[in-house]
C-alpha cells in the first residue's frame, strides 16, 4: 500500500485550517498582511517537521501555537528595533509597536475573527479583483498559483494584486473589525458580492475553453456556507447560499458529453444533484423564516427554487417566476434583470409579450456588448417563426461572447435557422 504523501496531507490541513489561523493571528497583531506571513511561517515549519513526526492530532492548534511563537519573536525584534530607534532620537508610534496581547484569542472568538477577516478582505478600498483574490487567499486557503489558474491570469499578476491589496489595507489603516450601524449592510453586501463573483466565475466562466470551473463553485459554496453560520440572522446570506446551492445542483446536467452547454429547460433533471437541491431549498426557507421582504439574492434563489421544484420543464410555474422577476426588478433595477424578466414573461404569456419587453432594452447602452440580449431575441424570434431575423440575432450574439463553448452553441442555433435546415 502506498504511504500517504505527507506534503499533500499538509496542503489539505492548510486548506482546512488557514482561514481560522489567519483570522486568529490578525486579531492578535492587528495586521492582516503580517498575520498571513506568520501563518505561512507556521506552514513552513509544519512542512519541515510533519513528514517525520506525522500530522499532530490537532493540527490547527499546533499551527496556531507555532505562529504565535513567531509573532512573539517578531514583536521582540521590533521592540529591540524601537529601542535602537529611540536611542537615535526618532519618534515612533509606540502603539503600533506595542506587544500585542497574545492571550486574547480563544476558540469562541474565532467565528467573529473569521467574520472580521471576511469584512477586511472585501473592504471597499480594494478593487473588486483585489477583493476576490484576497478572499480566496485568506478565507479560501487557495495558493496564489491556484487563484491564478482559476482566473486564467499569470501567477505574478495575482501575487502582485494580493501584495498591493495588503498594502492598501495597511496604508488606509482599515481596522480589523465587524462594522456596526449603517455601514454594516453595505459592507456585508460587498462580502456577498465577492462570494457570488467567485461562484459565477466558476459557474459560467467568462473566458477560456471550459464553460465551468467546478472547483471555484465549490470554493464559493464553502465560503458562503461558512459565512451563513457566522451571521445566521442575515436573510440575504442564506439567500445567496440557497441561490448557489440550487445553481450548483445543475452543474452536471448543464454540460453535454462533448463539454457543450445544455440550457436549463433542456437539462435532464434526474441528473440534478438532489443533495444540493435539498440543501438549497432548506436554506431558502431559513431566509424566509427570518422575516421581512426577500432581498435580491433570496428572490433569485426563489426563482431558482421554482425550477428546482418542477419535475419537468413543462411543469415550471412561469407566472410565479415572472412575478418574482417583477419584484427583483423593483428592488434591483438592471437591464440584465429586465432581460430575464422578458424571458419569464415570454414563457408565461407568450413570445410576443417577451419581445415587447425586449424592445425597450434595445437602446440600453450597458447591453450593447451583452451576448444574451441578441441570444434571447433570437430565441423568441425562432418561436415566432421569424427565422431570418433570428439567425441574424444568434450570429450577433456569437460575435459578442468571449466563451468558446457558448459561441459554438450560438452558431449552431444560427445555422438551424437557415432555410431548409431541420428544426432544432
Amino acid at each position, binding site marked *: 500500500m502506498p504511504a500517504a504523501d505527507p506534503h499533500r496531507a499538509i496542503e489539505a490541513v492548510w486548506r482546512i485550517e488557514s482561514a481560522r489561523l489567519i483570522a486568529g493571528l490578525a486579531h492578535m497583531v492587528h495586521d492582516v498582511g503580517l498575520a498571513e506571513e506568520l501563518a505561512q511561517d507556521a506552514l513552513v515549519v509544519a512542512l519541515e517537521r510533519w513528514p517525520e513526526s506525522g500530522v499532530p492530532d490537532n493540527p490547527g492548534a499546533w499551527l496556531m501555537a507555532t505562529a504565535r511563537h513567531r509573532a512573539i519573536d517578531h514583536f521582540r525584534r521590533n521592540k529591540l528595533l524601537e529601542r535602537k530607534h529611540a536611542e537615535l532620537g526618532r519618534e515612533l508610534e509606540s502603539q503600533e509597536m506595542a506587544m500585542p496581547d497574545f492571550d486574547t484569542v480563544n476558540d469562541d472568538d474565532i467565528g467573529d475573527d473569521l467574520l472580521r477577516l471576511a469584512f477586511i478582505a472585501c473592504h471597499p478600498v480594494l478593487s473588486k479583483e483585489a477583493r476576490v483574490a484576497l478572499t480566496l487567499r485568506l478565507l479560501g486557503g487557495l495558493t496564489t498559483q491556484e487563484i491564478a489558474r482559476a482566473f486564467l491570469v499569470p501567477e505574478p499578476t495575482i501575487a502582485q494584486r494580493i501584495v498591493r491589496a495588503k498594502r492598501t489595507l495597511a496604508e488606509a489603516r482599515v481596522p480589523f473589525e465587524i462594522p456596526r450601524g449603517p455601514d454594516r449592510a453595505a459592507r456585508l453586501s460587498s462580502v456577498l458580492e465577492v462570494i457570488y463573483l467567485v461562484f459565477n466565475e466558476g459557474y459560467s466562466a467568462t473566458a477560456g475553453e471550459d464553460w465551468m470551473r467546478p472547483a471555484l463553485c465549490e470554493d464559493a459554496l464553502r465560503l458562503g*456556507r461558512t459565512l451563513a453560520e457566522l451571521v445566521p440572522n442575515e436573510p440575504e446570506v442564506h439567500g445567496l447560499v440557497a441561490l448557489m446551492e440550487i445553481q450548483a445542483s445543475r452543474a452536471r446536467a448543464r454540460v453535454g458529453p462533448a463539454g457543450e452547454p445544455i440550457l436549463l429547460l433542456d437539462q435532464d433533471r434526474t441528473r440534478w444533484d438532489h*443533495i444540493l437541491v435539498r440543501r438549497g431549498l432548506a436554506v431558502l426557507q431559513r431566509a424566509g423564516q427570518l422575516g421581512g421582504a426577500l432581498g435580491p439574492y433570496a428572490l433569485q434563489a426563489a426563482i431558482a427554487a421554482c425550477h428546482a421544484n418542477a419535475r419537468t420543464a413543462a411543469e415550471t410555474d412561469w407566472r410565479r417566476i415572472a412575478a418574482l422577476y417583477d419584484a427583483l426588478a423593483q428592488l434591483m433595477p438592471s437591464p440584465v434583470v429586465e432581460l430575464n424578466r422578458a424571458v419569464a414573461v415570454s414563457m408565461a404569456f407568450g413570445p410576443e409579450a417577451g419581445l415587447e419587453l425586449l424592445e425597450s432594452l434595445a437602446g440600453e447602452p450597458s447591453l450593447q456588448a451583452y451576448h444574451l440580449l441578441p441570444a434571447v431575441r433570437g430565441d423568441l424570434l425562432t418561436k415566432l417563426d421569424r427565422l431570418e431575423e433570428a439567425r441574424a440575432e444568434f450570429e450577433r450574439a456569437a460575435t459578442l461572447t468571449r466563451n468558446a463553448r457558448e459561441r459554438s452553441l450560438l452558431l449552431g442555433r444560427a445555422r438551424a435557422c437557415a432555410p431548409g435546415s431541420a428544426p432544432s
Partner: protein
Amino acid sequence: MRFLSIYKTVERGVPPTQEEMARMGKLVEDAMKAGYLLATEGCLPSAAGARVRSTNGKLTVTDGPFTESKELVGGFAILQAGSREEAVEYARQFLLVAGDGECELRQIFEAGAAVCAAPRV
C-alpha cells in the same frame, strides 16, 4: 470532489453515552457549518437491519443482528473535499471523536469531475 465515508466499527451493544453523543453532535455541527459535510447518518444496531443478497440470481434475505462479522457499518458521511488528503483529514478528525474503527473513503463518481489522482489544478 466528493467522498463517501463508510464507518465500520465493532458493535458494542450499548447506546452511546450522553457525552459521546454531545461530542459527535458538536463535530457534525461544526462540519456542517464549515460546509464540507454534505450528509451523514448513523445506524441503529444491526439487529434492526437485514442483508439482501443475490447469488446466481437467487435472492436471500438475512435478518440482523450480523454476529459473524467483526466490524459492521456504523454510519456514513458524504464529504466535499478538494483532494483525497483533505477527505482523509476529515476522516481522521471523525475517528478522533468516534473511537476505534475504520473509515473507508471512496471517491464518488461525478460526471466531468477529475479523478483525484492529481492535485487540484
